[in-house]
């Protein structure tokens, strides 16, 4: 029982962590906030399901194809909408509003395309459970956890070892200096938004088989991931993972041992308390005026 719970918590925690990482990435690169991350996850899940279930593509191909499309979508939103809005001298809060309307469009668009019912994402593996050290575990949970950890490591390597990743970090620290060094700063921003939505979309495909696919699936995950990102220290990518894991454990264990109806209430309560008493989160980033 406990092991299953821990695996479940790790799984959902890595989902929150990965989506939250996207928030951190966007914030680091452009100083902005997107509230459409959860819906990126939802769109990813729908796309993945369409490729896998209806077009009969192999799972891994569906996953990669979805991630590619989501990368383009994220980049498109930054390049076309956000940049234009900022060029008009809009305040950051209007960018948030813009992403809210994008999230509304994505949700409504998904509903019009795929309907408003919960759709079943066929299971990826043939067996229903795998037996590890005598514990029955759903293999999709392990897959989600595995993909989550893989993406985090890949991103870490990309940001620290690759040339473009280094450019992104440089641009995030000092735009002016970076562009003086010949770094294409707008491209790094676009890429950050692209990667953020790619990660969310990818994890959406992976959790599709576990939770089913429906239009509002992203909203709650997106907000929890956000909560994780804040608790971890907004803008700190590793903090977002830890924060996401924290909320994964909180809600798993609260619903197992205390109350399942109030688990989200408690999660958001923790978030508000953290924002009141520790607004910089565990790993500080600037949030106060």
């Amino acid at each position, binding site marked *: 029982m406990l092991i299953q719970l821990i695996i479940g918590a790790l799984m959902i925690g890595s989902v929150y962590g990965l989506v939250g990482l996207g928030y951190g990435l966007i*914030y680091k690169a452009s100083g902005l*906030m997107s*509230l459409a991350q959860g819906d990126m996850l939802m769109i990813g899940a729908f796309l993945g399901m369409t490729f896998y279930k209806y077009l009969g593509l192999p799972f891994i191909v569906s996953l990669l194809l979805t991630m590619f499309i989501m990368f383009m979508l994220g980049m498109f939103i930054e390049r076309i*909408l956000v940049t*234009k*809005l900022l060029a*008009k001298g*809009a*305040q*950051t*809060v*209007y960018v*948030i*509003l*813009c992403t*809210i*309307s*994008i999230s*509304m*469009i994505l*949700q*409504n*668009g998904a*509903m*019009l395309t795929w309907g*408003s019912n919960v759709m079943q994402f066929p299971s990826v593996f043939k067996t229903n459970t795998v037996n590890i050290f005598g514990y029955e575990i759903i293999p999709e949970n392990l897959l989600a956890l595995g993909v989550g950890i893989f993406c985090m490591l890949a991103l870490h390597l990309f940001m620290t070892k690759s040339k473009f990743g280094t450019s992104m970090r440089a641009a995030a620290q000092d735009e002016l200096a970076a562009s003086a060094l010949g770094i294409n700063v707008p491209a790094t921003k676009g890429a950050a938004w692209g990667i953020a939505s790619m990660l969310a979309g990818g994890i959406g495909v992976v959790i599709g088989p576990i939770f089913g696919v429906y239009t509002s699936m992203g*909203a709650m995950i997106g*907000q929890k991931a*956000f*909560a994780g990102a*804040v608790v971890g220290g*907004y803008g700190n990518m590793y903090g977002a993972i830890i924060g996401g894991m924290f909320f994964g454990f909180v809600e798993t264990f609260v619903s197992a041992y205390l109350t399942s*109806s*109030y688990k*989200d*209430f408690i999660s*958001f*309560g923790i*978030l*508000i308390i953290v*924002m*009141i008493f520790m*607004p910089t989160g565990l790993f500080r980033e600037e*949030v*106060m*005026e």
Partner: protein
Amino acid sequence: MESINVNRRKTIINTIKEKRFLIITLFIISAIIAYMLRERYLALILCFICINSIAVSGLDILFGYTGQVSFGHAAYYAIGAYTSTLLSLKVGIPVFFTIILGALLAMLFGIIIAFPASKLVKHFLSLLTIAFGQMVYMFISVTDKLTNGFSGIIGIPNLKIFGYTFSSNQSYFFLFLAIVLLVLLGKKRLINSRVGRAFIAIRENPHAAAGMGINVRYYKIMAFAISAFLTGLAGAFYAHLVGFISPDSFTNAQSNIFMTMLLFGGIASLVGPTIGAAILVVITEIMQSFVSYQMLIYALFILAVLFYLPNGVVGIFDNIKQIVARRFRKKVD
């Protein structure tokens, strides 16, 4: 001497403006009344316009004038609605008082949220307000014993004042209209006062505002309180008008609808919230058969405002006014 002249001229202009405003509103009201006495459905729509207009005016004081964003205003709407409903239905307090208590409780929560919120920058303020909105929504959704959960509460009693029961949409409309006018008058007076100037100064430049002796935190909290009070009041009215409430009316989407109404009508303007509420309520009603496109349309409205109409519909009117004035001035010259 000269300063007195300037003063007098300004006062005269203001009086004329106020009178014109009154006459126009009275005219519109009488026309509407004449028409709707036959149309029950129309009266209901007008009631919704009034209720939303009160709620959005509240949001405007917070966001438009003080520059503090809230994406969770449905929370105060819900607190007003559920408090008034439960107190009147389960405790038996007269509805008139429960409406006030509902608005006051919403205000209290607004103040509680404002304490941490007044210190946060925009991104985090957005998140805090969303989180609060979600908490209230979840609370009313899962606390079955108190709120009857997702099934909602039916049979909410009508408002009764001095023995008169508001039982028809028409009667409610008269009441709401009077309250909307009072809210607008109060808002106008507030904005043109020392407090209103402090609000706007904080929006424009919080550091300079503090330098001018304004206790920024105090006024930010005050704006939250006023805002939550008005939205809570609107929520309570909604509950007694419709007679049924469920968590569906108080979701995240409702907060976004308030925001859309505000932006589309025109931010930081007296009648912007009312115009925005009117347009969106009417469009929602017209689109009743296309309900699945509703969010899409709201989203496009927001984008249209963000990209093309920074001052909303009121901004269009202002532009027309300016163009006309310029033409007129040219002719005079």
